[in-house]
């Protein structure tokens, strides 16, 4: 009997251990994203970084930014082979490829594109409808031709048609059939198609063998949600993950690089950390106080504190690398100047300002560092810590004098300027987005640039807007954080990874494991 028990235990243990180690390699790509669970796979609703990552593998746009880049000027054909526009830039005609298959069957036609763009512009179906407000009509001229008529010129039109946010083209039949369920059963035309979603665990994708650029070399993708940084790193280290979302931290980068057969990529677009100052509230309504704050913040030290490789010092109110970004020169660090400005403004003993602050560690430690720097210039910054959803709610109710906000947007100056510095976006208004400073000093330039068809003039307008905003110190830009991912040395994306709109290295039909 004892022998039997011993044999049983040994067999069970051998069974348990025997099945370890057979990690799939070769054509199965295992990705770890930082998140608790999937939010939505509806590309017209997805805003969270982990959601956008997986959506980017399922959908195409009419055009795309070359994989591995985040430069909106690197636009190339995607579903459309060519396009033309009228002289007044109000009418655009796109010719589609005729070899594109929808996931689940059916050829992609102009009807799908029309349906998709109308869906992106619909208030009920899309979170990005406002960006498509100039779309007067979208029509299918014939099965291969789509015509877009605009109510006013949109110079960044192609940027709205790349596979990002509303530019993702969905397949009409699948979207109509699924209704609200599309968020869990998406169908596009991309290199990978949706197979399965396991709550709190993973999304599984398989290769779209009919992909128009050729059958993907990776045949299966498991896209896992791993919330804990430590577990994600350990899963990568143990070989259970091939491509892992990283921490925005130089120590993490160094540690991952030291692992055998491991690579780390650091790329843009940058996420700009910006301290917005409410210009309507005392004492911040005085520009000298705002200037004092700008002089009291030591940007190089903060960037160094966040990490020399992952962070770079900000040089404007629009992140570097964005189309239209202008290095306008920010205030130098000088506690003496800050104190002098405060005295001139009638605050010789310093000022006290209040901020509602999220407890999210990366935001909290940044704000605490800013708080310590301001103190040296006689500026007391009181922080009221709240959890992240509360923070988002309260700053939109205009309850915080100072708001530290970190954001990466579609890399065109217009997006940033419109959402953070145009009067329409001031919090409290029905059209509010994220203008926490009540800044409106560059409305004319921002509006004019939006419809300026001459690229050079448009850039000049954006540069002028940035100068005005910096002069009036609507906000104090601090540093930009880049994206960091770790991947197996054997993983080849097929493109150099210099940037990525979806904030994940480009997983395309060319991605493969090499020996």
């Amino acid at each position, binding site marked *: 009997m004892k022998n039997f028990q011993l044999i049983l235990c040994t067999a069970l243990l051998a069974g348990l251990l025997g099945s370890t180690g057979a990690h799939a390699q070769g054509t199965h790509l295992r990705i770890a994203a930082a998140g608790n669970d999937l939010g939505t796979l509806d590309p017209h609703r997805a805003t969270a970084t982990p959601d956008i990552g997986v959506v980017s593998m399922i959908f195409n746009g009419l055009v795309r930014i070359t994989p591995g880049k985040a430069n909106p000027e690197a636009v190339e054909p995607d579903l459309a082979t060519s396009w033309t526009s009228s002289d007044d830039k109000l009418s655009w005609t796109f010719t589609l490829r005729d070899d594109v298959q929808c996931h689940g069957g059916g050829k992609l036609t102009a009807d799908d594109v029309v349906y998709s763009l109308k869906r992106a512009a619909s208030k009920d179906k899309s979170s990005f409808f406002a960006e498509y407000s100039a779309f007067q009509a979208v029509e299918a001229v014939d099965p291969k031709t789509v015509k877009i008529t605009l109510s006013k010129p949109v110079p960044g039109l192609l940027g709205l048609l790349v596979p990002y946010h509303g530019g993702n083209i969905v397949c009409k039949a699948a979207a109509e059939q699924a209704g609200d369920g599309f968020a869990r059963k998406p169908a596009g035309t991309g290199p990978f198609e949706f197979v399965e979603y396991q709550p709190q665990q993973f999304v599984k994708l398989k290769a779209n063998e009919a992909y128009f650029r050729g059958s993907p070399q990776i045949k299966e993708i498991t896209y896992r949600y791993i919330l804990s940084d*430590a577990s994600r790193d350990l899963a990568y280290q143990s070989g259970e993950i091939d491509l892992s979302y990283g921490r925005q931290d130089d120590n993490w980068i160094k540690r991952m690089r030291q692992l055998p057969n491991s690579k780390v990529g650091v790329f843009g677009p940058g996420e700009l950390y910006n301290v917005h100052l409410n210009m309507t509230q005392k004492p911040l309504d005085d520009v000298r106080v705002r200037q004092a704050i700008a002089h009291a913040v030591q940007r190089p030290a903060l960037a160094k504190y966040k990490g020399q490789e992952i962070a770079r010092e900000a040089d404007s109110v629009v992140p570097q690398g964005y189309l239209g970004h202008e290095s306008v020169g920010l205030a130098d660090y000088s506690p003496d100047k800050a104190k002098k400005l405060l005295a001139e403004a009638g605050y010789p003993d310093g000022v006290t300002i209040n901020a509602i602050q999220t407890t999210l560690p990366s935001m909290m430690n940044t704000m605490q560092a800013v708080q310590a720097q301001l103190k040296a210039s006689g500026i007391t910054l009181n922080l009221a810590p709240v959890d992240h959803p*509360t923070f988002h709610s309260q700053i939109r109710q205009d309850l915080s004098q100072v708001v530290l906000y970190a954001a990466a947007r579609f890399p065109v100056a217009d997006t940033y300027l419109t959402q953070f510095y145009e009067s329409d976006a001031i919090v409290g208004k029905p059209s509010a987005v*994220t203008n926490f400073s009540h800044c409106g000093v560059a409305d004319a330039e921002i509006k004019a640039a939006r419809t300026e068809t001459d690229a050079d003039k448009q850039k000049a307008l954006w540069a002028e807007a940035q100068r005005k905003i910096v002069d009036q110190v609507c906000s104090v830009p601090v540093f930009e954080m880049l994206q960091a991912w770790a991947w197996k040395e054997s993983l080849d994306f097929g493109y150099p990874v210099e940037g990525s709109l979806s904030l994940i290295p480009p997983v395309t039909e060319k991605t493969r494991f090499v020996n």
Partner: protein
Amino acid sequence: MTAFILKRIGFAVITLFAVLTLVFFIVRVLPGDPASVVLGDQASAASIEAMRQKLGLDQPMVFQYLDFLGGVVRGDWGVSMATGRPVVAEVLNVLPYTIELTVAALILGLAFGVPMGIWAAVNRNRIPDYLTRIVSLLGLSAPAFVSAVILLLLFAIQFRWFPVISSGQDTSLGGKLRDLALPAVNLGLIMAAYITRVTRSAMLEVLSQDYVRTARAKGVPNNVVVWRHAFRNSLIPVVTVVGLYLGILIGNSVLTEIVFNRPGLGKLIVGALGQRDYTMLQGMMVIYTFIVVVVNLLTDLVYGLVDPRVQYR
């Protein structure tokens, strides 16, 4: 007995109703808004308002409450405000994982805790007692996320016996057991620490009773004294602790779920809280309350099995 159970069920219904009402209003008083979570941080105030209307959040709170109660009576728990899927379906998706983990931890806790407690009591103030007390103190004081990372470093990275990702990598029975092993040990160790201490003190009390001395004086062998005479009579506090701790275990499994990448109720509730998913939070709170009520009822019933003197009225 039947009257007792019926009375307890009646109390349970009242408790559930009270919890439901409290949770309904508390989550809505919290700052934060599911509409803005659904739409993301680039959404305009107007579109957030439109989403609030779609979710019914623009209605007066009393109307929302009555609507919700009506749904509950009809067995409709509503749909998650964040995902649009039925609350019940979302919960049922992950409930088996939580039950697996809790039951496994409980079994491990009992398997290690009870013998260690008895061993310590029998050897009071000798080396086994000191050793057990130190080990159980360590078990009680080590935070679950620290012990989890240590277990992973040791058994998943160093020895490579178990996976870091404890879910869904291998669906065979062996694979499932392997997935469950480290998380269950992590939770089970804490449970074992509690049970060890309670068993020890209960046994010490019983062992000092007159009837034990009498049994020893009669020449009853030590084994029989400990296991038959003393152990059974020391079970009531152990059962109480197991009952109490089971509820806590289900609630506390969140850290273990996060570190070992297991789905479960804990992760679901943390996600719902972060997203201000009112309907999901309401559903989850009722489920937690229900579990605690049921476990308490079962604990009371087990008292009768353990101690025939207990009467149900």
